[in-house]
Structures are given as C-alpha cells and as structure tokens.
C-alpha cells in the first residue's frame, strides 16, 4: 500500500457519502450508500489494519433512505449523522431528513469466530436511531449536515436556501441564516469555520462562498468570497492551522486556496483535474497536503507548500515540497465524489467513487519523508 498499491473495497450500491471516524485510534471510514430501492441502503464501517494491511468491514442497515451525506461525530466515536432522502410512492414525493445514529459497537476487527462468521455473512446490523430532523417544508432539499466543532448539542444543516443550526436533542432551530430577498442562487453545501470561536458557518452559493455568523439570525454574510470559481463551487475546507485560509473546489476544475480577508484573488490555484472537482480536504496534520476528488474519476494529492511554508512576514521557512500534484490516484472508474483523510493516521486517505468503490491509499513514502525530515 505504501508503494502506491491502494486497497480497494467494493460495495453494491452507488455511493456519495464518506466520513472518517474521529476520536479513534483505528483507521476507520464510514460509507453511506445511495439507492432508491427501499430498505437497501447501508452504512459500511471499513477499518484498515495498519500492520497487516487487511481490510475489515461491518455493515449497518440504514432503512430510512438513501444517504447523500454522512458525518461522524467529532465528539463521540460511535455517533454519526446522515443526510438522507426517501421516496414515498404513495405521494410520489421525495423527503429528505437528517438523522443521528449511534453504532452499537465501534470494533470492526472480529475477536472470535462468531464475530467472524457474522461479518462474513455480511449480515447488516441495526444502529441505534437517536433523532431525525425534518425540514419545515417536506419537499425542501437538504444539502448536508455538519457537527458543530465543539458543541456536542449543535448541528448545522444546509438547506437549499438557508442554513439552520439545530439543537441535537430537541431538533429545534437555534439560529438561521438565509440570503436576503428571493435569491435564486441555491446553496450547494457548507461547513463550520473551525476558527473564530466556532460560530461561523460557511456555505457555497453558486460560484460564491459566504460565511454567516450563527449567533443570531442573519441575512448578510460575515464575509464572503464572490466568484470563488468561474462555475459552481462544489466544496470547501478550512485550513486546520491557519485561521484565514480555506480551500475551495468547483466546476471550473480548479482547486483554489483563499485568504478570505482578501477574497479578490486566490493565493493558490491549480487546475489539474479535467472535470468538476467535487471535494477538497486539507490534511489535518500537514496543511500543505490537499486531497481532491473529481468527476474525471481521479483523486489527486496536491502540495500547496509555497503558501503554507511561510511565517507571518511571508518569508519562506524551508523548501519542502514543490507545489503541484504529488500523485494521481487512478483506480476509480467513475466520478469521485468523496475523499477523506483518516482521522487517526496522517498519511492515509480514502476516496470514494460513484460506482461504489472505496480506495484506501497512502501518501507516497518519499513525500512523507520529505515532509517529516
């Protein structure tokens, strides 16, 4: 696996949802399937055994609907959040919702033969359903739901036209932000800002990035980056270490990094993909490593060392990596909608394509040594 031989794991249904499991020492990823057939959706927990390179999985039922988005809780290892959609043939209507589940066990590697046979049988287990939050209007679409970085009781949900912070326990809306007037530009997704006191929520609105303060209801963004991409912006990720840096990706096939204090021009921009970029992730430990997934069926590992390797005065600290693509991962055969770094191990990441293929890969060893040494 170190030498670029990635480990591949296949699922039965189309997939669009992937999340690393936080607060855990094991390299675990959770995958949500997307199928319109009733009672066919599942959550897969995949664990990579670091020493042997073996993959272990556990499957849980997700009967509430197809999973569009999945987030593990940063506060509790067993809790997860899914954004789902289900079709009701009676009304011939789709309903979306956000649900919180708790895994009965976090262990994936079988301890004894019973476990092993259970897993080999791939019998899907049940998860404990904690709470479901439904939109006010039943037909309203939900883009994604995100855990508050520090407050266990809050989640932010991005709807088509608004962002609402909900209380996990009651489901009540605590604060909402929606653009002024009847803006036709819908939200695509969003994320909490891990800096600034954890009260800002950044959303993608068409080509723009807007960040709202969630302490009150508001209609005006705290800050924004207009025209962050020439086409639709698809994803964003905040730099875990530098409070004003964020990366964004979009339909112009570009990966842009911004200092949002000056959102006129990106401080770093690459166009290495040959189609829309759906996801971008900063490595939590090494901010110069960025992972992107695109509908050109590739995941790219990109170095943005030149802007991360600076001290406050803009001087270069060292010449660690060249900017640009370090490695292209081409094991996918369909669009890669998700890519995530492991929360437990800084060099491992997973990418998930629509054709239900999870690829676990590692940063090539020579780059790793370059960064470490």
């Amino acid at each position, binding site marked *: 696996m170190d030498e670029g031989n990635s480990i591949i794991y296949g699922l039965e249904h189309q997939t669009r949802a992937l999340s690393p499991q936080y607060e855990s020492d094991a390299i675990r990823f959770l995958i949500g399937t997307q199928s319109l057939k009733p009672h066919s959706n599942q959550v897969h927990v995949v664990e990579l055994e670091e020493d042997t390179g073996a993959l272990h999985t556990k499957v849980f039922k997700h009967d509430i609907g197809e999973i569009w988005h999945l987030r593990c809780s940063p506060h509790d290892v067993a809790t997860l959040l899914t954004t789902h959609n289900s079709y009701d043939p009676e009304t011939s209507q789709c309903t979306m919702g956000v649900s919180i589940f708790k895994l009965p066990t976090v262990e994936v590697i079988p301890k004894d033969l019973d476990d092993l046979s259970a897993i080999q049988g791939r019998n899907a287990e049940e998860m404990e359903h904690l709470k479901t939050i439904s939109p006010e209007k039943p037909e309203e679409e939900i883009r994604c739901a995100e855990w508050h970085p520090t407050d266990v009781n809050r989640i932010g949900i991005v709807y088509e036209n608004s962002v609402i912070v909900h209380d996990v326990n009651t489901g009540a809306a605590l604060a909402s932000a929606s653009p002024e007037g009847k803006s036709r530009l819908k939200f695509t997704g969003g994320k909490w800002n891990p800096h600034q006191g954890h009260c800002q929520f950044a959303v993608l609105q068409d080509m723009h990035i807007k960040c709202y303060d969630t302490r009150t209801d508001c209609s005006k963004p705290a800050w924004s980056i207009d025209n962050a991409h020439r086409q639709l912006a698809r994803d964003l990720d905040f730099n875990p270490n530098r409070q004003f840096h964020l990366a964004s990706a979009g339909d*112009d096939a570009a990966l842009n990094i911004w200092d949002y204090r000056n959102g006129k021009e990106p401080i770093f921009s690459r166009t290495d993909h040959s189609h829309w970029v759906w996801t971008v992730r900063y490595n939590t430990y090494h901010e110069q490593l960025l992972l992107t997934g695109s509908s050109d069926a590739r995941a790219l590992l990109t170095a943005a060392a030149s802007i991360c390797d600076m001290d406050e005065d803009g001087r270069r600290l060292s010449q660690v990596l060249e900017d640009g693509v370090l490695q292209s991962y081409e094991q996918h055969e369909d669009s890669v909608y998700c890519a995530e770094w492991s929360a437990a191990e800084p060099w491992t990441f997973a990418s998930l394509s629509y054709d239900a293929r999870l690829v676990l890969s590692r940063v090539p060893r020579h780059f790793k040594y370059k960064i470490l040494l």
Partner: protein
Amino acid sequence: MSESNKENGENPLDIDSNNFNSEMYLECLMKLATLKQVMDKEAEIVKQSQFLQSEMQTLVYENYNKFISATETVRKMRSDFQIMQEEMNKLSENINKITSFSSQISDSLKESGTNVNRLCSTRQLLDKLQFLFLLPSQLNKAISENRYADAVHDYAHAQRVLQKYGNQPSFQSIQSECSEIIFGLKKTLRDRLTDPDTSASELAESVGLLRQLQETDTSLQDIFLSCAESRLDQHLKGLSILVERTDILEWVEKCNNTLLADLGIVISCYHEIFQDKDNTNLPEFGEKVMSQVFQLFEEVVKRPENNGTEILIRGLDKFFRKLQAMSEIISSDTVSQKALDVVIQCVRHKASLQYQSIQSQFKDSLMRVRQTLASKGTESVDLRDILNSLQVYLLQKIQASLLDLKAFLQNNLSFGLKPWCAKAVADSCWTVISETLISLSDMVKKMACLKTSNNIPFELLLILAKLCLELQENGVTTLHNHLIKLLEEAAPGLTVDNKDTNSVMVHLSTAAQSALDSEVVYIGQTAAQMLRVSVLARDWLRAPEPRGPRAVCRRVVETLASADSAASQLFPTSVKPSSDSSRRTIWSRAPSSFSPINRIFSERIEVFSPAGADRGALSNGALKVALKALVECVRLRTFGKHGLQQLQVDVHFLQQRLSCMGNDERLLNALLEDALASAQLRCVDPQLMEPSIVDIICERG
C-alpha cells in the same frame, strides 16, 4: 743686304746681330759684291756709324742733366732732414710733458669719479625701491582699470625682491599689502571665472593669470572645469527647456551651436593652458557633460512630435556628425561608444514605436471585428474574410514598419553604412516582427483566459486561433525572409544572423492552442450551463409524459451547431469515421445492468483536454463538456417514470442531432449512454419507452 739680315737674325753676317762677325762679313762682302757695291756699302756704313755716334752723344747729354738735377735734390733733402730732426725732438719733448700732465689730472679726478658711480647705483636702487613702494597703488590702479595682465606682470617682477628682502620690516608691510591686493585680485579672477557672463577667452585669460600667480594646477583645473561646467549647465538648462518647445532638428542645431561648441572651446583651452599629460579630469568632465546631453537627446527623441522617421533621422544624423567630431576632441572612448549607443537607441526607440503602433492599430481593428461580429449573426459573416483581412493587415503593417526602419541605413547618413548600425537595424526589425507576433500571442492568450472570455465572441477566438496558426506556419518565415531581403537591398554584403523564429512560433502555437481550448470550453460550458440549469430546475419526479424533446435540447444543439459551422469556415474537416453506427440506438445494450464492468472496457474521457485544430476535434471538445455536465446533473436528481422517459427522448434527440458533429461518435454515444444509465439508476420506477415511440416523438418534435 737688308734681305739677308731679315732672313737670318743669327746670321753672323747681319750687322745688327749680336753674333756679327766683321771678318766674315767683310770676306763675304768682298767675295760677293762688286766694287761699286762695296763702295756703296762702305759709304752706307760710315753714314750709319756717324748717325749712331751723334745719337749716343745726345743720350749721354740728356742723362747727365738728369743726374745733376738729382744730385741737387739729394743735397736739398739732406738740409731739410736736419730741420725735421730738430722738430721731432721738440715734439717728443712736448709729448712727454703732456703725459706727465695727464697723469697728474687723472690722479686728481679719480676720487670724484667713484663718487659719481656710487651716486648712480644709489639712484638705481632708489628707483627700484620707489617701484616697490608704489607697487600697491600701481597694482590697485591696474586692477581698477581691469589691466589684470599688467598687475600680474608687475607683481611677478616685484615678487623676487620681496621674497629676498621680505624679512626687512619696511618691506614686510609692502609685501603684506601686495599679498592682500593680489589675494583680492585672485578673488576677482576667480569671481570672474565663476561668473556665467565671462566669455571663453576671458576665462582662458583668467586661468592663465591665476596660473602665473602660482595657483596650484589641480585646484585651477577644478575651478576652470567647474566654472566651465556651470556655463555649460546654463546651456543644458536652455536646451532642456527647448526640449518641450522645438522639434529635433532645431534642438540639435541649437545644441551643436551652443553647448557642444562651447564644450569644444573649453576642452581646447584646457589643453592649451594646462597641457595636462595625464588628462585625468578632462575625460571625466566631458563624459559628465555629454551624459547629460545624451539624456536630453533621449528625451527629445521620445517627444511624440519627433516620431516622424524623416525628421528623426535627419536630426540624429546631424547630432551624430557633431558627436563624432566631439568624441575626437574629448578623446574619450565612452563618449564615442555612447554616440553609437545613441544611434542604436534611436533605432530601437523607433522600432518600439512601430510595434506599439502596430499593436494598437491591430487592437483597433480587432475592436471593429468584434463589432462586426456583434452586430451581425454568424451566418452573414464570412469568418475567412475577416481572418484574411486581419492577417493581411498585420503583415502589411509589419512590412511597412520594416521599410521605415530601413531608412536608417541610407548611405548618405553619417551612420548609414556602418556595420554596427546595420546590425542594430536588423535586430530592431526582428524585434518589431517578433514583438508584434509575441504580443499578439499574449493578447490572444489573455483573451482566451477564461476569466475574461465571457464577453469575447467565440468566432473571434476561432479567428485568432487560426490567425496564430497561419502566422506560425507561414507568416513568421515569410517575414523573416522579407527582412533578409530588405537588408540585402539596403546594406549588401551585410550578414545577418538567423533569428530565433522558433520561439516566436512556439508563442503563436501556444496562443492558438489556448484560444482553441477557450473556444471549446466556452461553447461547451454554454451548452453545459443550459443543460445543468434545465436538469436541476425541472421536477423529474412528477413530470408529465414526454411529448417531444425539451426546448433546451434544441438550444443546445443550436449552440453546438453554430460553433461547428463557424469552425468549419476556418478549420479543415478531417475525414470522419463512417457513421453507420449512428442508427444504432443507445439502449440496445441493456443499461439496467449498470455496473463498473461496462466502464472497465471504455476509455477514460478527459473532459477539459487540449482541443485539436480541426473542426471535428473542436466540436468534439464542446460536446464532451456539455454532455458530461448532463451526466453529472442527472445523478443529482431523482426521476419518476415519465421523467426518465423524457430524458430518454432528450438523449435520443441529442444523439440524432449531434452525431453529425465531432469526430468521435463512440465518445458521444458513451456519454449519452452514461446519462441515460445514470437517470435509470436515479429513477424510482425505471421503465424505458419503446425505441420506436421515442423515434416518433423525436420526429414529431
């Protein structure tokens, strides 16, 4: 007998001869002559003897008288001498007396003589002293009358004495006074040096005087140069004011006549006065002044009213001639080098003007093209025409400017036939060509940059791409050959290094590529945007039964078709693969078995990839962008039965209409298939329509 005498002088028979032998004569006479003859002879001889006798007597007599008178004279003389002797004795006595007297007198006069001598020398000394005592006032007077030369002369005269006797108290005061005056004089002279009104000759005089006053040379040189500099500065100021007001000819005239002329005088004066062997200060000084002149000249050249080639060349010629003369006077390599540089600079300046004007004119003509394209529909505009006119326009402009630059090589110019000038002209010509083409490339690249391409019609991008390609293929070499021919005409025998045509070509081809890419993405994105918006906005779940392809599909086809037809005007159509398969309907391969296996056998599709320079490849690129967007958007929606069928109709329609475009039908089919398969996956009730019905609906639509 006389005959015989005559016959022989030695004849002993000749009576008058000294060898006369009377015996023989008688014997001979007795033998030969008759008696009678002897008788006669005798008579004759007697007679002759008698005659001789008397003659002798007379002579004696006469001589005797003479002797007597002589005797008398001698006697008289004897008595006279006696008197004389007495007189002489008396004289000698008198002389002796006189001698003694005179010695007496001289003895007595000796004393007074020395007295007189002493008096004379005293008087001379007094004269000198008087001169000295009067010197201060004399000096003052001379100075006040501006006779500086006299004053300096006097002072130099007195200087030695003063130095000798300077320690005497009485002289000290004089010396100090004189020093003061001379100090003042020096000051006056220096003032005069620094006075800007002083003429060059006065200047030289002043410096000469100061030199006599034993000013040290270096300080004098400094002063001389500094004051010359201040005078030249004035000229420079005047000239710099003129820069704004006059044209280059007038300016050069003025500059030659004032500043450069004066500089020449200053330099020659300097040589005259100081005869400085080392020549340390002068070149530096000359260079300093000249550098300012050059600076001003550069400004003059840059004035827009001096842009005309004719006037510029004439002015430059004049200036250069003067400079050549000047550089000999200054004898500084830097200045002569700089003179060459000035010409080269001018050539370059002219070249840069040329390509700037070409550039701006080209931009204007592009603006006109844009207006034409904006005002008319695509069908009515002949893109080929526009392309040709742009290309011809550009080439003509470049060739005209090359001709213009060739004027620098006219052989009546002072620099016209110099190899360095020819080289500069050749280089500049090439600069015009390459800069024009490179800036064209840059402009195209900038226009192709996606951020700004929103307002640029795609036809223009096509035209520019084609223009760049044509220039790359033919234009560059044509211009290069043209340049070589021109130079051959202007300066025969001049060898011009081959220019780096490759880098220009690379620029052009990358520009063409980016224009093409941009066009493809622009068209593709336009279509993709239409498809995206229409897919995302529609409620596919509760859609009615399809009655025909949606309107957006027609618009997409129109957009792609108009781009295709525009491309066809400019870019060749490569041979299309046989389109037998176009009749094949996509869903003949059961799409419900959507699985990764299908994809393993299909090639990876690079959506945003470099576009080829032919019609098919261009259309293909746009198709890819549009249809891939359709696939992705379909996957974000949930379809009902009729929604799926509507999409089936749309896909079929697109397949029918688009299969004539592009050069890769497999790719088109794969993408459409993917779209339909994705829709089936996202469908809650995946039932497709019968292909025949789809056909009918599409026909009807």
